[in-house]
């Protein structure tokens, strides 16, 4: 008898669950997804989803204004340069951390030292900073070894942590008196001032953020109470969840066929988003035959950009890409939307090839794409076809990322051309161009060109030290032209993404937030979004 009643209870529970498994909750939620893993430590974050987490949980001294309106104060009230090597930043008063502690200059100094001592994440942006000191409780001074114009923009990536909270939770570690610098603590806890707090964080499964009701900037009245970020969800699953109303914002990495299918659904909107990024076929400038500028120009002119562009079409009306006009991309200082894209001209290409000191039939080009991103393969195949038009033999290889990053550390092993996408970390051209194209920076995945152009070097160095914005725009536009004229790399496509958004959250607040920020990860500002 007892057994029967036990099974009845289980059966009843199952029936109730079947009827009620759809999401029923008083709290409002936005569920989104990205590729694993999510990094929640402000001294380690570097990728897109890491940035989404950090921008929502932590704040920086400066922020990006909407619609390319430049930088604006966030935790600061403003900044000034007493001399070209010194930047003073004044802090807002009364800003509270999640712990309830009040922000002061010591927190900024601690956050900076933590970032640099740990040497990960965006620490590379601050290589020119000599020291950071607290002049008083509300003023921080940054001293640089030389005038460094991108510093203010770089401060967007200095997330400010709660020094007292982190120090209280520090254990023994690799950083001397600073122990582990709170590494273990910040794996699953937030110590920022941001609009959301970290409630749950499994870097391989999901991150849950809950609203910080005491946030100093406030929230949209309809901002979600909770945000769930899921990692590495299959495209087919995302499609199913979106259509069932169990997912609100998809990542931008869905295959075109899934996007095409979703474009026909009433319950989902596809939102066009211009990303500050581009795809390139990075030419190795130090390896024959591409150490000869004429060979590089020939391949640049031979590349069939139009043929490739067609492959981005999702539907007749939606194309997930935009022909590139160089290194400067939308959202970055100096970008000119009216600049003409680079075009194919096979006759000029053959003429340039004739000037090259190398005979193409003597070379077999090794062309690579990143094996984890099959989406990139057509870029390499297109290059292979066009290189063969010029008389080269060419092989195309999908290189695992780990192998590529190892190979690229010497120019002899770096492929003749590699398809790589690059996103702007901050809305300043220095972070994008110096790291990729200055001759001192060869050997990283970003700088697979091993560029070695004195004219370009001079312009990039000048851009770093020039503090006048109008002058900087001229310098970077000139550098951009040098890159095109000397075919330093093949700029193929500026990145345009389509993000499926459920009708549950598709409204002007959410869409404008998605579309009006340029910096990687900044667009998913949940406090500005609205749940219908």
């Amino acid at each position: 008898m007892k057994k029967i009643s036990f099974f009845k209870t289980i059966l009843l529970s199952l029936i109730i669950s079947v009827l009620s498994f759809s999401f029923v909750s008083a709290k409002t939620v936005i569920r989104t997804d990205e590729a694993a893993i999510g990094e929640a430590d402000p001294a380690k974050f570097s990728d897109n989803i890491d940035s989404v987490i950090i921008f929502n949980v932590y704040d920086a001294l400066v922020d990006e204004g909407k619609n390319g309106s430049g930088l604006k104060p966030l935790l600061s009230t403003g900044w000034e340069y007493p001399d070209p090597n010194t930047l003073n930043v004044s802090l807002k008063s009364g800003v509270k951390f999640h712990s309830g502690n009040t922000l002061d200059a010591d927190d900024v100094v601690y956050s900076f030292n933590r970032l640099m001592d740990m040497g990960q994440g965006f620490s590379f942006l601050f290589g020119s900073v000599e020291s950071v000191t607290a002049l008083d409780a509300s003023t921080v001074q940054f001293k640089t070894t030389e005038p460094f114009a991108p510093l203010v923009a770089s401060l967007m990536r200095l997330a400010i942590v709660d020094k007292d909270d982190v120090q209280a939770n520090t254990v023994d570690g690799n950083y001397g008196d600073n122990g582990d610098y709170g590494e273990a603590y910040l794996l699953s806890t937030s110590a920022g001032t941001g609009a959301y707090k970290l409630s749950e964080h499994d870097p391989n499964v999901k991150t849950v953020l809950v609203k910080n009701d005491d946030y100093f900037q406030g929230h949209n009245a309809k901002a979600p109470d909770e945000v769930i970020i899921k990692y590495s969800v299959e495209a087919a699953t995302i499609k199913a969840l979106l259509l069932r109303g169990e997912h609100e914002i998809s990542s931008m990495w869905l295959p075109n066929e899934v996007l095409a299918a979703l474009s026909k659904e009433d319950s989902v909107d596809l939102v066009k988003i211009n990303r500050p990024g581009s795809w390139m076929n990075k030419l190795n400038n130090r390896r024959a035959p591409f150490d000869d500028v004429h060979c590089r120009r020939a391949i640049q002119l031979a590349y069939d950009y139009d043929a490739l562009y067609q492959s981005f079409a999702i539907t007749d009306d939606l194309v997930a890409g935009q022909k590139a006009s160089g290194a400067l991309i939308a959202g970055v200082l100096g970008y000119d939307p009216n600049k003409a894209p680079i075009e194919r001209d096979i006759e000029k290409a053959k003429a340039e090839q004739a000037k090259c000191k190398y005979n193409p039939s003597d070379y077999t080009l090794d062309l690579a794409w990143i094996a984890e991103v099959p989406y990139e393969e057509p870029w390499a195949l297109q290059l292979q076809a066009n290189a063969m038009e010029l008389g080269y033999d060419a092989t195309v290889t999908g290189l695992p990322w780990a192998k590529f990053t190892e190979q690229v550390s010497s120019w002899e092993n770096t492929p003749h051309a590699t398809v790589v996408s690059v996103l702007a970390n901050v809305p300043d051209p220095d972070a994008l161009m110096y790291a990729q194209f200055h001759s001192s920076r060869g050997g990283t995945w970003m700088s697979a060109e091993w560029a070695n152009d004195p004219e370009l070097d001079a312009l990039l160095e000048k851009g770093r030290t020039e503090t006048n914005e109008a002058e900087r725009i001229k310098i970077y536009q000139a550098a951009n032209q040098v890159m095109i004229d000397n075919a330093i790399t093949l700029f193929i496509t500026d990145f345009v993404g389509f993000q499926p958004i459920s009708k549950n959250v598709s409204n002007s607040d959410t869409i404008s937030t998605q579309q009006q920020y340029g910096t990687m990860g900044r667009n998913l500002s949940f406090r500005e979004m609205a749940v219908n």
Partner: protein
Amino acid sequence: MNTLQYFLRRIFVSIIVFFGVSIVIFCLARLIPGDPARIALGPFATDEMVEQLRETLHLNESIFIQYGIFIEKLFQGDLGISTYTKRPVLVDIISYFPATFELVLMSGLLMILIGMPLGILSGKFKNSIIDNVARLISLLGVVTPSFLWAIILMLIFAFWFPILPVSERMNEALDPPTLVTGLLLVDSLLEGNFKVFGDAFLHLILPGLAIALPAIGNVARLTRTNLSDVYEKQYIEFAKSYSFSEYRIATKYALKPASIPTVTIIGLDFAFMLGNAFLVETVFVWPGMAKYGVEVILAKDLNGIIATALVITTFFLIINMIVDFVVLLLNPRITTKD
């Protein structure tokens, strides 16, 4: 040799196998291209930081010293830090293993509950319409890989008849039960929380079935073949001549001997599921160890790779011992001497 001695010997051999596998995995993991420290710290980390992590991970030592350190820490219950999740590997395994284990238990249960009856029906009614239908189902099960079943099931139950959940272990709106075993069904029952139990059970159906279907086909086909063979034995004819009931012949004289090879296959399939659940876990957003295992390989997380491989190895060894024990029970003619 008595049964106890036999199992002690099996345990001893299993320990040797465990360490043998650990050496092989330890070496193989280091053959994957790329510097684990550079991959872990990302492209922007300074060379000094990369070198420091290499030191921390003992990557600059010889492989013999590295293995020695690994074994020493293993005995202390320390599997090292995952360079992928940045957490202790033990924390990762404790987080992810129960999810996969519960899924595999569900699949194993479905494999037995569906596969064996299907095989029995097929074998009992050989060459009838029932047999043909059962064989068709088994064949489809065997030839279709789990990940395809996952997509097919999702198509049916997410799009055409959206009646079953298709992602994660339980509804996000529900509060999870207090963690005791990590198995949601068990923990929710311990807490008396039937709502979570029902919800977790429903979440298990589709991924469990996707993993089980190929194994169901396997088990059904094997049961059918063995049962057919047994039914042709003289002692079955003898039982029939004694006018024993069909039920008695089937359960007492036919099924028991026929199920011995099936039990072996069930054991192996059960163990295989643990490592092969990767794609199904990915499709159903299942926070399990199989998915973790593949991701740590891609990230060249040496500690994560070895820990995952050793957990699966241990599982294999335990299942093998259980299978041997069950076979001994089923067939007294097999002795520990054999």
